[in-house]
């Protein structure tokens, strides 16, 4: 048996019965990394020694009461892990070793998770293909000539290639869901505020959210249970009770009302993707849910408002990289200003500079009202579309991305084309809603993702629908041949 192929709940069962040890499981994952990493390149850092050490400790203690105990996890490289390099796939943080854990890292450690390594991403989470990594591009395990999506492409690829049991990613405009869709895995962006952002390197603070990438919906619920909840250190985390999400793992969508927004199936959506989403709708109908066409009229504006708001917040957040307190400092400089400028110019990649420039422009004197204020008003309209829909519907279903995974290099020359690949996911971040991507079909051997969007803080219903769909279909059972 290839232990690295197990899900969390399968591994947990075997660990609890002492049929396998955490060391065996961890070694199986490390062996898999050795075997396929040259092709996939999902990891920036593999923390082999400490992972083995941790798994030994868990085995010795023998306490497998936590469902994550002794199970290897891969963490996106913009989530701080104490004493383990966290680079954001940027030259400017190439040597950064955090002196503290992000709240999610701390929570996973408290559950005795085994951190196997840090995954590749688009630099500072800015991108949709993981090609913007300052170090190397990650490949899609289903077709290594294609991108894994982004920005959590390393996490999605590592899960799809069984180079970990599960992973964490972050999602600002689709960065968990779009790569999950491209790699045929499950990816959940929780409601904004559900999971603490403390220790997540900030990109766009009003949109960023951490979430799980897993092999099935059950695992997704297990990980969310572990990481969700209020945190004093993140003032935007919600002080609300967290339900036990495993209670949502029931096969029942009877009487559920689902909306299918026509704007998500329009121009630019590949016919195979549209067909897969429509058949997913039929699956739900057969299981007793009702699906009706709805309209979210401000959908197309959401994308452009996002590309003002996110860069504006980024330009402010990334001002901290100045070569003084951490990160890489430029070598020769004349004075302090020259030090700042040289450090930032050498340290940031092209897309990061582009977004800093765009954001600085949108916030600069004379343009603030025309761009930033306008975008925030459009955000209100985007959110109002969803509010109206959720008065009548329990869930909204849509494609996660308009196409399956594209080829490496296909969109790197045209940022606008790259931005379009997030058109189905961005509105959800703008409204702060929870949404999952689960496999729902294939086009030419490449996975297609179904996006299920829920009401604020109603991950439970999202998970229930996703679980029901997963059990009723077999898209989840296919694995890439690497």
């Amino acid at each position, binding site marked *: 048996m290839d232990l690295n192929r197990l899900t969390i709940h399968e591994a947990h069962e075997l660990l609890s019965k002492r049929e396998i040890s955490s060391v065996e499981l961890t070694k199986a994952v490390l062996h898999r990394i050795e075997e396929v990493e040259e092709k996939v390149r999902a990891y920036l850092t593999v923390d082999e020694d400490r992972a083995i050490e941790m798994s030994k400790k868990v085995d010795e203690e023998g306490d497998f009461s936590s469902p994550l105990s002794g199970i290897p996890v891969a963490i996106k490289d913009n989530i701080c892990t104490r004493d383990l390099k966290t680079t954001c796939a940027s030259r400017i943080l190439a040597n*950064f*070793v955090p*002196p*503290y854990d992000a709240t999610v890292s701390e929570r996973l450690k408290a559950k005795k998770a085994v951190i196997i390594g840090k995954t590749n991403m688009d630099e500072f989470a800015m991108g949709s293909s993981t090609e913007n990594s300052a170090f190397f591009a990650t490949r899609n395990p289903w077709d290594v000539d294609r991108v894994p999506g982004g920005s959590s492409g390393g996490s999605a690829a590592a899960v799809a290639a069984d180079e970990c049991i599960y992973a964490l990613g972050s999602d600002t405009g689709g960065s968990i869901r779009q790569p999950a869709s491209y790699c045929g895995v499950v990816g959940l962006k929780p409601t*904004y*505020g559900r999971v603490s952002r403390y220790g997540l390197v900030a990109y766009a603070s*009003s949109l960023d959210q951490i979430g799980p990438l897993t092999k099935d919906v059950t695992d997704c619920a297990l990980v969310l249970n572990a990481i969700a909840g209020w945190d*004093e250190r993140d*003032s*935007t985390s919600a002080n609300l009770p967290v339900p036990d999400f495993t209670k949502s793992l029931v096969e029942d969508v009877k009487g559920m009302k689902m909306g299918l927004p026509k704007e998500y199936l329009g121009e630019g959506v590949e016919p195979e993707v549209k067909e897969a989403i429509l058949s997913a709708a039929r699956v739900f109908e057969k299981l007793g849910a009702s699906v009706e066409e709805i309209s979210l009229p*401000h959908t*197309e*504006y959401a994308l*452009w408002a996002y*590309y*003002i708001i996110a860069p504006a917040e980024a*330009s402010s957040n990334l*001002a901290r990289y*100045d*070569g*003084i*307190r*951490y*990160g*890489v*400092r430029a070598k020769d*400089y004349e*004075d*302090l*200003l020259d*030090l*700042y*400028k*040289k450090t*930032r*110019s050498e340290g940031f990649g*092209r897309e990061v*500079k*582009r977004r*800093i*420039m*765009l954001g*600085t*422009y949108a916030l*600069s004197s004379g343009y603030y009202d025309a*761009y930033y*204020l*306008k*975008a*925030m*008003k*459009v*955000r*209100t*309209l985007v*959110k109002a579309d969803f509010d109206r829909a959720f008065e009548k519907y329990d869930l909204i279903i849509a494609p996660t991305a308009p196409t399956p995974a594209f080829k490496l290099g296909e969109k790197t020359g045209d*940022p*606008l084309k790259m931005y379009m690949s997030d058109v189905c996911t961005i509105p959800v971040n703008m*409204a*702060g809603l929870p949404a999952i991507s689960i496999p729902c079909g294939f086009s030419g051997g490449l996975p297609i993702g179904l996006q299920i969007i829920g009401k604020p803080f109603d991950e439970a219903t999202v998970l229930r629908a996703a679980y029901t769909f997963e059990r009723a279909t077999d898209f989840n059972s296919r694995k890439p041949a690497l």
Partner: protein
Amino acid sequence: MKINIETVEHVANLARLYLSEEEKAEMANTLSSILDYMDKLNELDTTDVPPTAHIIPLKNVFREDVVKESLPREEVLKNAPEKERGFFKVPRIIED
């Protein structure tokens, strides 16, 4: 919206970036075309629409101001590119 090289230089200075001539030209082009798309937003009348900066209706989250242990100085300085006697080291900014 057409962005010219002078605007690019002005914004680059605000953002504390040096750009090569080639980067400036590329930046002027892409920013212009991105901002052209942004102009689509003007199709919407938002006169009476309030802005949403944040999705959660939160204002000034306070906590008690209590003294707590912070990270040890050595830990904090571990990542500093240059340090001296327990401080971050920066170039001189005050003339003699």
